């Protein structure tokens, strides 16, 4: 069984983790085209090489990011999501007033 190094809990059996998909920035839902939205939603790059992925340590529900080589299945490094997502995300208000 593979070992993954959780940034919070240290090295653990991979069975303690779930995969959360590739890290890929969401296009601005208010501005993007239907086509681009659908591509972001449904199409995975499935790259042969180093990818950034979301992983969650299940016993602690801790989400973090792992860089993994999909060719060798080698986990190169893991770090907290805060290393990438450093500041608050807001969405532009629509014209109408919120209820």
């Amino acid at each position, binding site marked *: 069984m593979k070992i993954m190094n959780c940034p*919070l*809990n*240290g090295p*653990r*059996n991979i*069975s*303690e983790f779930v995969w959360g998909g590739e890290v890929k920035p969401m296009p601005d839902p208010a501005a993007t085209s239907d086509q681009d939205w659908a591509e972001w939603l449904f199409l995975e790059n499935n790259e042969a090489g180093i990818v950034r992925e979301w992983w969650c*340590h*299940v*016993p*602690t529900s*801790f989400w973090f990011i792992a860089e993994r080589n999909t060719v060798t299945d080698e986990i190169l490094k893991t770090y907290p999501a805060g290393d990438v997502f450093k500041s608050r995300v807001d969405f532009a208000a629509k014209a109408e007033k919120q209820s």
Partner: protein
Amino acid sequence: MNAIAPASHLRRSFIYRLLAASGAEFGEVNGGAVALHYGGSREAELATARRLGLADLSVLPHGGFKGKGTVEWLTAQGLAIGPDSNVAYKQAGGEWAARLAPTEIFLLDSLAGTGALLQRLNAAWQWAAAAPRPAQGYPMPRQDSHAWFMATGAFVPEMFAKICGVDLRREHFAEGAIAQTSVAKMSAIIIRADRPAKDGRVTPAYHVLADIASAEYLWTCLMDAAAEFDGKPVGLRALRDLEA
């Protein structure tokens, strides 16, 4: 603490029936019934606790705080909390402040079970009157979300090796170390908190905190894993005797 029936109290351990079936004699702590001993000789139960004993401390005071400002606020309340996550920090009154994450503390009372610290903290925590409010974390209902067991004795690491994939042997899992992991296929928190006696003899001891709704399941799994080493349930009296 006279013998009492668990159902005579409003607060009840989820496994009081299993304990009673093993012959537990109960006494009141923290508004609930805790198994004090299992009827045999005091020395024999102490010997079991030194070999491999399992105790249910679920009605003893435990709680916690979580969220931004938690550690700063608890520090201001007089708690001593170190910088590392997954380490439990022992408090002056014998309580443990287990740092599960940078902004999450799980509090375990000492086995005296007076609950003084938790009562003080819960009383001190109030919503500030108006926004913007200071970051002071939020109280967590840990008393009721988590069953609290304690496993004691020389064979505890061997027993855990049958149900837990983390290396909990004593050379590899220091006093105060925390493992948040999977035990018998359910999530659980394990904290090493040895019981030193006055004569210097140290009995290995590990707290086990897990989903209260699966308490019966986990207790049964632990007893099954312990049987090979003649592990048995022990009461609060034996745990206290370990430190006598």
